[in-house]
């Protein structure tokens, strides 16, 4: 694996870490399987791209992308909380609707940003190679998000949100407005995904309606890989685990891309990636089993 490929994998892993954190919020904390991310990711990319083309400051465009994603999350939450549509179905409805919305936002399926200024532009001229600047900038953004989110989840509102996910009935009995927490949590989750979409568009030079495909799968894989490699009780560490899981997933893809050396074809990529991730999930369990049996032998 070359240095550029390695940093490239870390960079894309960091971008998708925001998705992983979002998925962790909805899937683990709120216990709300939310497929909206497949639509809010390209929505973020679309909103950011259109604003950049219009000459808006890249940071404001990225913030608007996050707000756009949050809006999409609110639609899913409304369908679920207000209209009692099953959470999975509510999120699927929003997701498929977003495909059309994204086409409307962009006006065409692909908006190129190769010649636009992005949040990364000011950092390119500092003498650090491009392939290191990108993961650095994205890494700082992710670090800020993790810190803010860890603080938020430790606040009274955050604790109530966690209680909502663990046992909504008990939370309501304690006077928690669980509906408000579902709204806030799903909006936050998709806001982070929208921000990820904006960063993806800016680091890769395009927004494309197809960029959402499989986002939920990647996010879930990152969350679960993260939980396996970093089994943490503390919430802040769990968020770090999401970041680690996302980077590990991308490293697995990178390894799979180099698998042609052992006779595998380009078309085997998804299979190889799945096998690598499965191995990553199984290994710690085997190790735990082995250490249990050695303890038993003593």
């Amino acid at each position: 694996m070359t240095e550029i490929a390695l940093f490239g994998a870390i960079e894309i892993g960091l971008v998708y870490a925001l998705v992983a954190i979002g998925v962790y919020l909805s899937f683990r904390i709120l216990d709300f399987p939310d497929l909206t991310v497949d639509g809010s990711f390209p929505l973020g990319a679309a909103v950011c791209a259109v604003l950049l083309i219009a000459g808006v400051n890249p940071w404001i465009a990225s913030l608007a992308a996050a707000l756009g994603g949050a809006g999409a999350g609110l639609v899913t939450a409304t369908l679920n909380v207000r209209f009692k549509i099953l959470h999975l179905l509510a999120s699927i409805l929003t997701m498929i609707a977003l495909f059309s919305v994204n086409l409307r936002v962009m006006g065409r399926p692909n908006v190129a940003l190769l010649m636009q200024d992005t949040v990364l532009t000011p950092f390119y001229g500092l003498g650090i190679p491009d392939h290191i600047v990108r993961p650095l900038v994205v890494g700082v953004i992710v670090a800020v998000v993790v810190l803010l989110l860890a603080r938020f989840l430790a606040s009274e509102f955050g604790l109530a949100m966690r209680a909502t996910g663990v046992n909504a009935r008990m939370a309501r009995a304690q006077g928690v407005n669980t509906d408000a927490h579902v709204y806030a949590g799903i909006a936050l989750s998709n806001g982070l995904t929208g921000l990820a979409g904006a960063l993806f568009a800016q680091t890769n030079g395009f927004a494309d309606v197809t960029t959402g495909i499989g986002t939920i799968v990647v996010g879930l894989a990152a969350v679960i890989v993260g939980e396996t490699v970093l089994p943490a009780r503390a919430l802040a560490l769990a968020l770090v685990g999401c970041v680690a899981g996302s980077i590990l997933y991308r490293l697995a893809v990178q390894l799979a891309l180099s698998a042609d050396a052992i006779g595998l074809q380009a078309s085997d990529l998804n299979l190889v990636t799945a096998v690598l991730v499965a191995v990553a999930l199984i290994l710690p369990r085997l190790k735990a089993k082995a250490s249990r049996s050695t303890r038993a032998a003593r």
Partner: protein
Amino acid sequence: MSFTRLLCAAAALAAFVGPIAAPVSAMAQGKTVAITAIVQHPALDATRDGVVEALKDAGFVQGQTLKVEYQSAQGNPATAAQIARQFAGSRPDVIVPISTPSAQAVAAATRDIPVVFTAVTDPVSAQMVKSMDKPGANITGLSDMAPVAEHVALIREILPQAKRIGVLYNPGEPNSVVLVKALKDEAAKAGLSVVEASVPKSSDAQPAVRSLVGKADAVYIPLDNTVVSALESVIAVGQQAKLPIFSADTDSVARGTVASIGFDYFQVGKQTGAIVARVLKGEKPGDIPVALAKGTDLFVNPKSAAAMGVSLPDAVVKRATKVVGQ
């Protein structure tokens, strides 16, 4: 054996082996071309094979003087971005991205490795190049804008009484959207109306074409990755409902569309490969104008046409480059 004879033999051997040895030494300093496509399907695969073939014609033989790397993103843009980073890191002599998203990801990943894109319909609006004539920087390539005007003329020639052309496409594919816009313009000029049916996923192709039965006199399929990958289900409906299906690409004619004027994507690949060879021989990509795909072959499929209730005019069959499906 005398010393002189030995010398003569050695000289003869050197004269004989010399020309063979030359490519061997060239192989030591062989070139690497990295090719990537967003998905795998027959047209994109043929493009890749054509690139390799053209490079062979130019003296860069795969396995001898040329190393070819190939990666498919399997439809996932994040993977496309990662492949772009991998190629930027392994520093091949030329990167050949096939299709718009792959090309954009590669352009974002490197500003110095030569890039020769192909199968990008509109390279200027994709911001791959500043202009077709003077691409500048490290990028040039080939645009595969389809000859839509000729397609409309062909449909009118085969079905003079047709008034409404249905079009099946994925509104999420940039190339298709450009082609559908061109189709509307050309159809309007020819006094035809266009009925659209969108196919966001391959599994939507069959219901979409069913929705056109009775609403269109013929169906046109642009070079749309989503629809083309589900072509057989579209053909089946065309035959059941006697609704003639036309395609923008000639590869699809062998799979059952009535006829097409289009590119043989193997030839598109060869035209791209010729540009790649120029870059390998030292030309700067930025100085090579973006080429437009040439070679408008007429493919017809009389058997499939008959199954869709169409008899092809003799004139069309006579001038066809290739008659398939017999």
